[in-house]
């Protein structure tokens, strides 16, 4: 039942706008700060309308970084972050989809044991195992490499579990029909299972990409040279400790840059989700 009381509509919209404002306001402030000069940003209270230094600040930060904190160029750090996030997202999905396929469609000894072992690792966050992982990575000479940034984080119990649940909903008849058609397991996987998993993969790609992009602890440990830092580390390092004042306008510009790729990924993948949800019918 749709009520047509204008007052309620007004209240509804007011609440929604208030919610959005509460969420967007800090982002807006950061954006404004990134368009100001150093003096304008240090001025208290800071102005709430955008300034004129947008291009200047972003160019400076991408090329040189901040003078007062770390001076690593944010451009390089963005590339590092991008590589890390992409490799992690694609790697996690690839590995998990194959593991889930094996667990669901094959019978082999200790199958359930393996599944539960994978499942149990869901309860262990990266931080719990960080010391042994660092030891192994250092021994294998993976420090300051892309491999070191991505490999230790590339297995995913969440994704395996989600794919397993999805594969269990695929009717057995497809596998039987494919078997009669002459498709072997890998052919069946490529021709039938993967196309059906597209929506799931798109959803997981977004989640894994953002996870990889936002990683802080592990990249901090495994990189020592500024050329290998990721954007998230870069933001932190731009804020010098002690009494020195940070160049907040540049820090905010970096933060805005850091938010951009995940937002783009979500926007692009939206189309896929909706398409997948609308089309689904077995």
């Amino acid at each position, binding site marked *: 039942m749709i009520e047509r009381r204008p007052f309620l509509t007004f209240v509804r919209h007011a609440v929604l706008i208030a919610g959005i404002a509460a969420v967007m306001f800090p982002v807006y402030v950061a954006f404004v700060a990134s368009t100001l000069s150093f003096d304008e940003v240090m001025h208290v209270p800071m102005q709430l309308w955008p300034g004129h230094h947008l291009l200047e600040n972003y160019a400076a930060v991408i090329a040189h970084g901040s003078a007062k904190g770390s001076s690593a160029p944010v451009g390089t750090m963005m590339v590092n972050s991008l590589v890390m996030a992409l490799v992690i997202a694609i790697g996690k999905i690839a590995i998990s989809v194959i593991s889930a396929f094996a667990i669901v469609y094959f019978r082999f000894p200790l199958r359930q044991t393996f599944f539960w072992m994978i499942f149990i690792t869901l309860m262990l966050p990266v931080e719990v195992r960080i010391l042994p992982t660092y030891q192994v990575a250092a021994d294998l000479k993976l420090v300051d490499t892309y491999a070191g940034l991505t490999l230790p984080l590339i297995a995913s119990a969440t994704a395996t579990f989600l794919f397993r649940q999805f594969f269990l909903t695929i009717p057995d*008849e*497809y596998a*039987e*029909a494919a*078997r009669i058609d002459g*498709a072997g397991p890998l*052919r069946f996987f490529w*021709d039938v299972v993967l196309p*059906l998993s597209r929506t799931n993969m798109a959803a997981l790609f977004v989640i894994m990409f953002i996870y990889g992009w936002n990683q802080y602890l592990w990249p901090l440990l495994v990189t020592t040279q500024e050329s290998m830092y990721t954007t998230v580390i870069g933001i932190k390092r731009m804020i010098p400790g002690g009494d020195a004042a940070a160049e907040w306008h540049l820090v905010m510009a970096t933060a805005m840059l850091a938010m951009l790729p995940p937002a783009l990924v979500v926007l692009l993948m939206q189309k896929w989700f909706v398409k997948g949800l609308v089309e689904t019918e077995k």
Partner: protein
Amino acid sequence: MATLELRDVMKSYGANAVVHGVSMNIDEGEFVVIVGPSGCGKSTLLRMVAGLEEITAGEIAIAGTVVNRLEPKDRDIAMVFQNYALYPHMNVYDNMAYGLRIRGMSKQEIDARVRDAARILELGALLERKPRQLSGGQRQRVAMGRAIVRHPKVFLFDEPLSNLDAKLRVQMRFELQNLHRRLGVTSLYVTHDQVEAMTLGQRILVMNAGRAEQIGTPAGIYANPATTFVAGFIGSPPMNLLQATVAADGAALSVDGARVTLPRPVPALAGRSVVFGIRPENLRLAGSDFNFEVVMVESLGADHLVHGRIGRQSIIVRAGADANPGSGSRVGATFDAAAMHWFDPATGARLNA
């Protein structure tokens, strides 16, 4: 040489046997229906022929070759599933072409076969559509098309019409018969619906609890059921099966004390307790070979089904539209000698008298 031979085929899951030694020879071009209630093992038997289930004991041979150890794709069979099993992300053309592409057939050959099947099944206009854009009947035809393009030695049907509404089922039965007449491929068809069995099958295998109860033509099984199970399963409404004792002179029966005069005496069964079978359509509401009390009359339009009680057992008579005895009244009925069936009460097996 028969196209499909089942030799003592058995299936058990651990210690649990679900199919007990079924044997049958199916000839080239024959349409055989396996019919039975849910859980009787008919689908399991079909899947063993397809290669989707392992055969615990016995042999299955297709065109002379024993196929026990062969993968489904090497058995030269094609299967139509109850739920169609069409690949949802491929269009109709690709669904039908998939198996052929895997075999490495040439594009022209694939195209020729797919278009030919589409023409036979009237799917020409639907080739670009995806399964979700098709109705149930259309999807079933695509499933059949996918089987046809393989040009297999045996078609296997696993209750293909169960998911369709009643009217569509009648239409598809007709199309299946046409298809079989046209293509002449040996077919093994599983169903729980005895109407489908009677109308489609050239021969029927009736299964119950994993055993083959009877194998024969529809007319043969209808006229001479081998067991009480077959007698009660084939034919609608089902045959009346009455526990009775034959009188000492063999000229009458006692059904819980009620007397039934037999049109022809059965001295061979004198004094025995038997199961007496008589089909509802073979009983006439006239004369008085026996009397029974009417419980209810169901009107089917063309006929009336008169439900009654004789002794403590129920009986159904199929009478014409004009007969309409009131509930509670006693009516008399007669029947012909040729319509009598006799079964052993302990084993259910047919007795000849």
